[in-house]
């Protein structure tokens, strides 16, 4: 593989990412399944980087799951998006930062549609005005939250206590990166690095000491794909997608997976348990799985945050072997302590997948 070819493509796909004053919108999936990631994003931006990040309590779903699931009509989706823009305008912000990849795709798609069809924008403005009395300005900048972390990857690296390096061998950790499909597959020029060789996570991993693994099924969907999972009859297709990826990446012996999408860490993590139960097969070392992280979790780890504050105890595949590889300390006894001191209870150990 010739890295120079990729570097040339990466240069072609750069974009402007605002430097401060962000209007942050949470993800439906992430705030329920990985709330620690969004909390960590806010902590890094506010406490480490001193940025102004605003969250509006009236922000709702972007309707992305319903829209891509053919349940929510286009005009409804666009009107909901217009309302989010109105909330941002009312709050005095111009730089939209969605936590969710699908929301990022939705906002990008809507703005592109309005750019090409101004009459559609006018119609949606009318819908919003009639329904809510609200008006809005078009955002000055839209960047996915992973774009923002990418922008400040050097600053994070400068403050980091750990590197993505195996402390026993001194070698960089082998990292599989998985980009959410809606990040740049629809609009390649809206993603750092484009659609075929996205750079947004590679930039972080390289800067934080790791080594990227490129494997044949890198571009393949994680298995969420909305209707692949949400329609129960299709779930075999969902797990088949994840299975295809694991089979493809396993020969490279990756130490970890890093993701930037709500569904991807969920499915790449949980399906490893299901595949182990169904096929008796595991993909990590010693019968364990390959640990899967969000980019905020990885940033939090190298910054020295408590792994349990990041929410790593909610992962199916145990993170401890990787923490040991890097040399990150953790208190095993506190793993299932809730934030209010309430014990969360220990999960039952799977029969096949080896967990700590």
């Amino acid at each position, binding site marked *: *593989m*010739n890295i120079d070819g990729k570097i040339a*493509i990466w240069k072609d796909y750069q974009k402007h990412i605002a430097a401060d004053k962000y209007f942050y919108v949470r993800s439906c999936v992430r705030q329920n399944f990985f709330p620690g990631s969004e909390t960590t994003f806010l902590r890094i931006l506010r406490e480490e980087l001193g940025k102004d990040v605003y969250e509006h309590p009236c922000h709702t779903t972007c309707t992305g799951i319903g829209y891509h699931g053919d349940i929510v009509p286009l005009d409804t989706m666009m009107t909901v998006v217009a309302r989010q823009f109105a909330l941002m305008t009312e709050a005095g912000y111009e730089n939209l930062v969605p936590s969710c990849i699908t929301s990022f795709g939705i906002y990008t798609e809507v703005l592109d549609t309005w750019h090409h069809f101004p009459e559609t924008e006018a119609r949606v403005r009318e819908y919003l005005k009639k329904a809510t009395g609200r008006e809005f300005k078009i955002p000055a900048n839209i960047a996915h939250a992973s774009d923002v972390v990418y922008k400040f990857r050097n600053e994070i690296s400068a403050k980091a206590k750990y590197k993505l390096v195996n402390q026993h061998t001194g070698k960089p950790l082998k990292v599989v990166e998985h980009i959410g499909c809606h990040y740049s597959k629809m609009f390649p020029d809206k993603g750092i690095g484009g659609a075929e060789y996205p750079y947004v996570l590679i930039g972080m991993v390289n800067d934080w000491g790791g080594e990227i693994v490129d*494997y*044949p099924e*890198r571009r393949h969907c994680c298995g969420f794909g909305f209707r692949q999972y949400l329609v129960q009859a299709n779930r075999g297709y969902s797990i088949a997608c994840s299975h295809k990826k694991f089979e493809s990446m396993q020969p490279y012996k990756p130490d970890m997976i890093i993701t930037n999408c709500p569904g991807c860490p969920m499915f790449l993590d949980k399906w490893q348990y299901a595949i182990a139960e169904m096929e008796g097969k595991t993909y990590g070392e010693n019968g364990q799985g390959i640990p899967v992280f969000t980019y905020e979790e990885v940033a939090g780890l190298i910054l020295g945050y408590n792994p349990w504050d990041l929410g790593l105890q909610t992962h199916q595949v145990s993170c401890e072997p990787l923490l040991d590889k890097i040399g990150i300390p953790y208190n095993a006894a506190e793993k299932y302590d809730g934030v209010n001191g309430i014990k969360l209870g220990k999960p039952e150990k799977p029969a096949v997948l080896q967990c700590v």
Partner: protein
Amino acid sequence: MKKKVIVIGGGIAGMESSAHLAALGYEVTLLEKSDKLGGHLLNWEKLFPTMRMGKDVVTFLNEGIEKGKVHVVCNANITSAIQKNNQFSVFLENNTTYLADAILVTTGYDLFDARRKEEYGYGIYNNVITSAELEGIFLNGFQIVTAEGNAPKRIGIVHCVGSRDEKTGNTYCSKVCCVTAVKQSIEIKERLPDAEVYCFYMDMRMFGMHFEALYREAQEKWGVNFIRGRLSEACENIDGSVLVKVEDTLAGKPLKMSVDLLVLMVGIEPSAGTKQVGKMLNLQFGVNRFFKTADQHTLTNVSNVKGVFFAGTCTGPKTITNTITDARAAASTIANYLSGHEIDDRIMASDIQLVALW
């Protein structure tokens, strides 16, 4: 006094039209930006469909230039051109000026840069090469080997790379790639009889005389496999081989296979010289960015500027056969113009606005 014609571009069209214009009695100056005549033909070993050597055709073209005593100027970098009273002055970087009564533009084509088709991994995956690079292997008598130095056991050939593809901005057919793929498949099998060769195509456009026969021969005699389906992506396996994903549209099934070498049949695009000379002479470009001819059916060598004419692939993809024919037609059109019999003065039967296809 002899009337003067400047021909810009010393490829097939420029050489053959120069020879004919000289034979018709004009004083011809052929300006070529590189250090020798022949253009892309110099990089091609054998030609479809006859498998005759490309250098034979170069010899034929050179003889015409020599016999006609064409004034050949290589390393000619044109900086500007002006037209005054049906006379052209063409200025070169070395401060030389050439005068002419007519200009023939034969600025040809460039090959599509396969890196722009990002999902096929050219320039990234070591075992993805272009048809031009494969031809270079044939021309130089090299062995066909993978990046790892092994003889490939399975080779994939992808048609329409940079042709008929909205994503790359080239919606037209490049015309010569299908038959080139057939030719190169046979040449691979001649050298590596045990290798499997798979061509992934959209349509097999075997429009030229004997092309269909060559296509049959590739299948029946050489066992080349033709699969109707366009590649969605190529990826690199851990051993350096290339994983391709394609839909077999005849079987109606998605197909995934690994090949040791993937050859991309790169298409034809207007050359950088075409763009440069076009701007310099205020020539019109069509929707596909090649030169727009005065009429699609009847004035295919005539430009929008009086006294400037076209020949060859600067107006669209052509085979060598068609380019030579076009070059001679252009010479004839210029002769008509210089003797006062302009063909664009003729009136069409109807004055219906033609669909602007190019």
